[in-house]
């Protein structure tokens, strides 16, 4: 009696987590999918309209703008963070004095909310104030920096603020990776007379591939989910020039009364993240089994 209870107990303990967790993840996912096939507008209803919301979505200029912005933001934010991150990590790896303090400074933006970050950068990038005024005060009186209110350039302000927030995170991961590399390979290369930049280029950076891959994955999915930063920095404006799928979904669902359309855009976001993450999770879980 006691024995069978003891074997069931662990399962019983995790059961609520899995029931609720799966209901939250997969149940709501399916539910959102159903909504995306419905005629829901202000309120959810379940009148089946097939792919009508998706047709409407893909016919909207605003959705295409959001996708294009996601492309610009994704490439700029992920690429910029990776590049600055790896550069700082390699430099910090050169027996730098006060390395701890530098690391702390590079990483602190990650502890802040994107809303805080957005508010700060909105002030810095504000035309007429902020950086523009600073450079003018230095004597360059014709200097202009109006990206934040420029339809074509505003999304790059989001990129800058995003990189500022996340480059330190990439740096931390790369640095951890660098410290995990076996010294003896490098010693051997040094004995062979290879120069330091060459050692990094040919041996160290290639060895960082798994770290690079994890960082890429985390940053990419953050880019797709990115919402707060855009809301705080530009609120999708001017007009809807800096809309991304996440802000598009929010606007359609909660201020435009287009719930079906919002659900359809959320499903597209899900599909994008899934296409990126599922192969990654699959390979990670398979290659590093915890069975003992």
């Amino acid at each position, binding site marked *: 009696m006691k024995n069978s209870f003891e074997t069931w107990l662990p399962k019983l303990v995790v059961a609520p987590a*899995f029931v609720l967790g799966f209901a939250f993840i997969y149940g709501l996912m399916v539910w959102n999918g159903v909504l995306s096939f419905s005629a829901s507008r202000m309120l959810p209803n379940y009148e089946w309209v097939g792919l009508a919301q998706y047709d409407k979505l893909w016919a909207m200029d605003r959705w295409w703008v959001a996708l294009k912005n996601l492309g610009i933001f994704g490439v700029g934010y992920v690429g910029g963070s990776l590049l600055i991150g790896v550069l700082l990590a390699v430099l910090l790896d050169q027996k730098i004095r006060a390395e701890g303090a530098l690391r702390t400074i590079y990483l602190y933006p990650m502890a802040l909310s994107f809303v805080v970050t957005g*508010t700060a950068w909105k002030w810095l990038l504000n035309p007429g104030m902020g950086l523009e005024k600073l450079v003018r005060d230095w004597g360059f009186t014709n200097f202009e920096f109006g990206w934040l209110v420029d339809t074509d350039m505003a999304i790059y302000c989001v990129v800058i603020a995003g990189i500022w927030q996340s480059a330190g995170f990439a740096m931390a991961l790369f640095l951890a990776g660098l410290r995990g590399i076996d010294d003896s390979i490098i010693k051997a290369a040094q004995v062979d007379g290879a120069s330091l930049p060459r050692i990094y280029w040919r041996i160290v950076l290639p060895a960082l591939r798994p770290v690079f891959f994890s960082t890429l994955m985390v940053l990419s999915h953050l880019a797709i989910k990115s919402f707060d930063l855009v809301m705080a920095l530009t609120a999708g404006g001017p007009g809807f020039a800096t809309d991304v799928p996440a802000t598009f979904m*929010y606007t359609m669902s909660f201020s435009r009364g287009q719930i079906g359309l919002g659900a359809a855009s959320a499903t597209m976001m899900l599909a994008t993240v899934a296409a990126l993450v599922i192969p990654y999770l699959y390979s990670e879980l398979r290659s590093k089994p*915890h*069975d003992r």
Partner: protein
Amino acid sequence: MTAKPLASSSLFPSAGRMLVYAVLALAVAFFLLPLYAMLVTSFKDAEEIRSTSLLALPGGLNWSAWFTAWSSACTGVDCNGLRPFFWNSVSMAVPAVLISTVWGALNGYVLSLWKFRGSDTLFGLLLFGVFMPFQVVLLPMSQVLGWLGLSSSITGLVLVHCLAGLAGTTLFFRNYYAAIPKELVNAARMDGASFFQIFWRIVLPLSTPIVMVTLIWQFTNIWNDFLFGVVFSGTDSKPITVGLNNLANTSSSVKAYNVDMAAAIIAGLPTMVIYVLAGKFFVRGLTAGAVKG
């Protein structure tokens, strides 16, 4: 992570080292600029902001913008400053962080030390919750909260944060407990210790580091959340991120940048303090969250 930096200074020519330090210093300026600008601006009055440079130190420590941001700045029609939002965030984050951490610890304990057939697959499926875009849950979840009578309430937000954080906290504890030798557990079972006794007497005392990581990680996530806050909160339950965003985007004829900056610092202060005090746990959380499996 205890290995030494691999380059010795003699390898790098001194001109090169100068360059290294120059780039690192440039990066310091880039990362500190916004914080510095926020701080100095928050101590200036409107006239000073207009007449001085962005980088100029304020004439004195003028706290009035801080008081305004805390207790009398207007967000929309309310003029109570950030104070009510701040306390909303506290009363949301504390229970949500504690519940999701305890929950994750129990799950991780079972999933690594009491494995059953299919538990790895179940865990893999749960793990997708770390990555999925929460936009997918917004619409159905707001209906669920309505049915539960938790719409626009702090309790509703706590529930959402617990569910959203479940996958992550389970991941942390599972990976950590995977390093505990199974023999330890088996020996305790031989001695007649029960499932919960083993957890309480053996596993939990070994868990301090991962408990710290999870607490800090969850606190940072939940305190900084904006999406759930803006969608699921009502007039009296808006968290600080929503309060700050409303404050900074309230359109008025004269923009009070000093108040906005003080407000942004107030909103970021709790997580920054934790980062300074317990940075290594925060970093461990970041790295643990990035390297799965």
